[in-house]
C-alpha cells in the first residue's frame, strides 16, 4: 500500500475513508474509557480508580466521543456521499479537504497525550466549566485548549468546503429542493459549524487568558462571572448538539424510504423541520443552566423555546413513520438500526422534554437522568444513524455486501445492550444519583450492575461490527450498482465500488 496516497490525497473518497478510520479509532478508545468508567461503577465504593483519575476518564471520554467519534464520522460520510449524491466531480476544494482531515490526528495526539503529562489529564468534564478549568485546571488544560483550536480550524474549513460543494457543484437540473435529504441536512449542519465553532474557539481563548494573562472574564473579583462561561459555552454547545444529530436525520431519511419501498413522506416539511431545528438551536442555550440562578423569566422563555424544538422534531418522526406506513418493508441491518433509531431517539427526545421543564429540571440537574438522556440521543441517536449509514453505503464503497447474519447479530446485541446500559440510568437519576462521581450510595447498586453488564455487551458487540467491516472490505458477495432493491438517487447509478473519479463536469 502506498502511504503517500493517504497522506497527500485530494480525493473525496480517500479522505472520507480516512475520516471514518479516525472516527472508528477514537470510538474504540473512547469506548475503552467508557468500559473503565462502568467497571468502576459496577460496585459502590472506590474499586479501581482514584476520583481524580475517574474524572479524567469521563472528561476525555466525552471529548473523544463528541469531537473524535461522532463529528468525524459524519464528515467522513459527507465526504464519501455528497459528491456522489449531487453528481460532483469531487469536493469543491480538494486540498483544503485534505488539510481539514490531517489536522485531526495532530489534535487528538495532543488531547490523548494529556494523560501522560505532569498533573495528568483535564478532569473537569467535557464542558470545561470555570473556575474548575481556569483556577483549578491542571497544566494540561492548556494543551486541551489548543487541541480544541485545531479541531475548530478543521471543522470550519470542512464546513466551508461542504457548503461550496453543495451550492456550486450540483449536477445540472438538481435544484436545491431536489437534493437528497442527507445533502440538505449537511448543508444546514455546515452553517451551524461555521457559526458555532468560532464561538468555542473564543471561549477557550478566554479560558487561556484567564489562566495565564490575568484577565477576569470568569472571575467575579474582577467584574466577570463564572456563569458567563456557561452562557458562552452553551451558546456553542447547543448548536453543537444539533451538529451531531442533523446529518443523522439525513441518513435515516435516505434509509427508511429504500427499505419501505416508498418515497419519503413530506420532503418539503423535512427540509423546513431541519432548518427550524437549526435556527432554534441558537435560542435555547440557557436550558443547560436552570439551576445557576439566572433570571426566572429568562428560565421560562428558555423553557418554551426548548419545548418548541419538539414540534419540528415531531414532524420528522411522524414523517418517518408515515413513510413506512403501508410500505412493503424489509428488515436488513441498516433498516433495523434506522427503526431502532426512530424508537430510541424518541425516548431521548421525551426525556429532553422532561429536562426542559424548569421546576422538574431543578430535581434532574446533574443526576444520572441527564446522562441517560444524552446517551439516548447520542448513542441510540447519532451513533445508530452512523452505523446504519455505514451498513447502508458499505456495498457502494467496497463493492461487496457485508455479512447479513453478522449484521443482525450486531444489531440485536447492540439494541438490547444499549437499553440495558442506559435505561436504568433514568431510574438512578430520578432516585437522585449524581453524575461525575466514582462512588455511590448502596441503594443504587442493582441498577448500576445492570448498566455495567449492558455496557460490556455493548462494547463487545461493536467488535462484531469491526470484524464485519474488515471482512467486507476484503471480499464478499459482489454488489450491483443499485445495491438495494428500491434504492433511489444518483449514487446508486454508478458502479459498486464507485470509481475513484466518479463524475466529470
Amino acid at each position: 500500500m502506498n502511504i503517500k496516497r493517504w497522506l497527500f490525497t485530494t480525493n473525496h473518497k480517500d479522505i472520507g475513508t480516512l475520516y471514518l478510520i479516525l472516527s472508528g479509532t477514537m470510538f474504540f478508545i473512547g469506548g475503552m474509557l467508557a468500559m473503565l468508567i462502568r467497571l468502576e461503577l459496577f460496585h459502590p465504593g472506590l474499586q479501581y480508580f482514584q476520583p481524580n483519575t475517574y474524572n479524567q476518564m469521563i472528561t476525555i471520554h466525552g471529548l473523544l466521543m463528541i469531537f473524535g467519534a461522532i463529528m468525524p464520522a459524519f464528515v467522513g460520510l459527507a465526504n464519501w456521499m455528497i459528491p456522489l449524491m449531487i453528481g460532483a466531480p469531487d469536493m469543491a476544494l480538494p486540498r483544503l479537504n485534505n488539510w481539514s482531515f490531517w489536522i485531526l490526528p495532530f489534535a487528538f495526539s495532543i488531547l490523548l497525550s494529556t494523560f501522560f503529562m505532569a498533573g495528568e489529564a483535564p478532569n473537569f468534564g467535557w464542558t470545561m466549566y470555570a473556575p474548575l478549568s481556569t483556577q483549578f485546571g491542571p497544566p494540561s488544560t492548556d494543551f486541551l485548549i489548543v487541541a480544541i483550536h485545531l479541531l475548530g480550524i478543521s471543522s470550519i474549513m470542512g464546513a466551508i468546503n461542504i457548503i461550496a460543494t453543495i451550492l456550486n457543484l450540483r449536477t445540472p437540473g438538481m435544484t436545491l429542493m431536489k437534493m437528497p435529504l442527507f445533502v440538505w441536512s449537511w448543508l444546514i449542519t455546515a452553517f451551524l459549524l461555521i457559526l458555532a465553532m468560532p464561538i468555542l474557539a473564543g471561549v477557550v481563548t478566554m479560558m487561556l487568558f484567564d489562566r495565564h494573562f490575568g484577565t477576569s472574564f470568569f472571575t467575579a473579583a474582577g467584574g466577570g462571572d463564572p456563569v458567563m462561561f456557561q452562557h458562552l459555552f452553551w451558546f456553542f454547545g447547543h448548536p453543537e448538539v444539533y451538529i451531531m444529530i442533523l446529518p443523522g436525520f439525513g441518513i435515516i431519511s435516505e434509509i427508511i424510504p429504500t427499505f419501505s419501498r416508498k418515497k419519503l413522506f413530506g420532503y418539503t416539511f423535512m427540509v423546513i423541520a431541519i432548518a427550524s431545528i437549526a435556527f432554534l438551536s441558537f435560542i435555547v442555550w440557557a436550558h443547560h443552566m436552570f439551576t445557576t440562578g439566572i433570571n426566572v423569566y429568562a428560565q421560562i422563555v428558555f423553557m418554551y423555546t426548548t419545548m418548541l424544538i419538539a414540534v419540528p422534531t415531531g414532524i420528522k418522526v411522524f414523517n418517518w413513520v408515515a413513510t413506512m406506513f403501508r410500505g412493503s418493508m424489509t428488515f436488513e441491518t441498516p433498516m433495523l438500526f434506522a427503526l431502532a433509531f426512530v424508537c430510541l431517539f424518541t425516548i431521548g427526545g421525551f426525556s429532553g422534554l422532561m429536562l426542559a421543564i424548569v421546576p422538574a429540571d431543578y430535581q434532574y440537574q446533574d443526576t444520572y437522568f441527564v446522562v441517560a438522556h444524552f446517551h439516548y440521543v447520542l448513542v441510540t441517536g447519532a451513533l445508530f444513524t452512523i452505523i446504519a449509514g455505514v451498513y447502508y453505503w458499505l456495498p457502494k464503497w467496497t463493492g461487496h455486501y457485508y455479512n447479513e447474519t453478522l449484521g443482525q447479530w450486531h444489531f440485536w446485541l447492540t439494541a438490547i445492550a444499549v437499553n440495558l446500559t442506559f435505561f436504568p440510568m433514568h431510574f438512578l437519576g430520578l432516585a437522585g444519583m449524581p453524575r461525575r462521581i466514582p462512588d455511590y450510595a448502596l441503594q443504587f447498586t442493582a441498577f448500576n450492575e445492570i448498566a455495567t453488564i449492558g455496557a460490556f455487551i455493548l462494547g463487545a458487540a461493536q467488535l462484531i461490527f469491526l470484524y464485519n467491516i474488515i471482512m467486507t472490505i476484503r471480499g464478499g458477495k459482489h454488489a450491483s450498482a443499485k445495491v438495494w432493491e428500491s434504492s433511489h438517487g444518483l449514487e446508486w447509478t454508478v458502479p459498486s465500488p464507485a470509481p475513484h473519479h466518479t463524475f466529470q463536469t
Partner: protein
Amino acid sequence: MDQSHPIKRYFLPKPSYWPLLGSFGLFFTVIGIINIIHEHWYGHYFFMAGAILLAYMMFGWFSTVIHESMSGLHSKKMDKTYRWGMFWFIASEVAFFGIFFGALFYARNISVPALGGEIASKETHALLWPHFQALWPLLKNPNPTAYPGPSEVIPAWGIPALNTFILLSSALAVTFAHWGLQRNHRTQVNMGLIITILLGLTFLSFQAYEYTEAYTRLNLTLHSGIYGSTFFMLTGFHAAHVTIGLTMLTIILIRCLKGHFLPEHHFGFEAVSWYWHFVDVIWLFLFIFVYWL
C-alpha cells in the same frame, strides 16, 4: 488556454503535500505557544519551527494556486467556489468576534450590575463585596487588591475617533484601487493599494501608541478587571486581524506590481478587499461599543 480563456471543466488538483506540512506547522506552533507559557526552554524552538513551516506552507500553497489560476485552470465555477469559501470564512470570523462582544455585553448588563446589587439577588452584593459600585467604565473592581482597576480609560473622541476616520478612508482607498483594476488603470490600482497599506500602518501605530499609554500611564491592562479584559481582547484581536489584512494587501500589491490580475479575473484581489472591509466594519462596532457608549 490562458487566464482570459479558462477551461470549462472544474479543475481538480493533484495530490499535494502542502496540507500535511501545514498540519505539522500548526502542531508545532500551538505546542510551542503552550510550552512558552509553561516556561519550558524548548517552547520558542517549537514555536519558531512551526511558524516557519506555516509561512513556507502558505507561500508554497498560494504560489501553486496563483500559478494554476494564471495558466487558466480556474473555470467560472471555481471562481464561485472561492467566493463562497471566502464569504463563509469571513462569516466564521464574525462569529468569533461576536462571542467577545457577547462577553462585553454580558459584563456590562449582567455581571457588573449583579455584583453591584442592581439586578438579581441582593445577597450576592451584600455578602461578597458590599462596597462595590456598578459603574461602566469599571474603574474600581469588586476586589481591587487582586484586580487593581484602571485610573481612567481611553476616551472615544481622541485617537479612536481618528483611527475610525483612518480606517474608513483606507476602505475608500481599497475600493478606489478596485475601480482602477476594473478599468485596467494599473497606476490607480498600485496607488490605491499603497495608500490603503499606509493608512493601515498608521492605524496600527496609533493603536500601539494607545496600548503603551494604557499600560504605562492609565494602568489599563489585561489584569485590570473586566474592562481591561474585554478592551484588550476585542481591540487586540482586531489589531491582529488588521495585521493579517495588511500582510495580504502587501502580497496583493506585489502581485499587482508584477502585472498579475485581469479586469475580469481577479478574485484574489477581491477576497483581500472583502477581508479589509470586514476588518473595517468590526472596527465600527468596536468604536461604538468599546470606546464610545
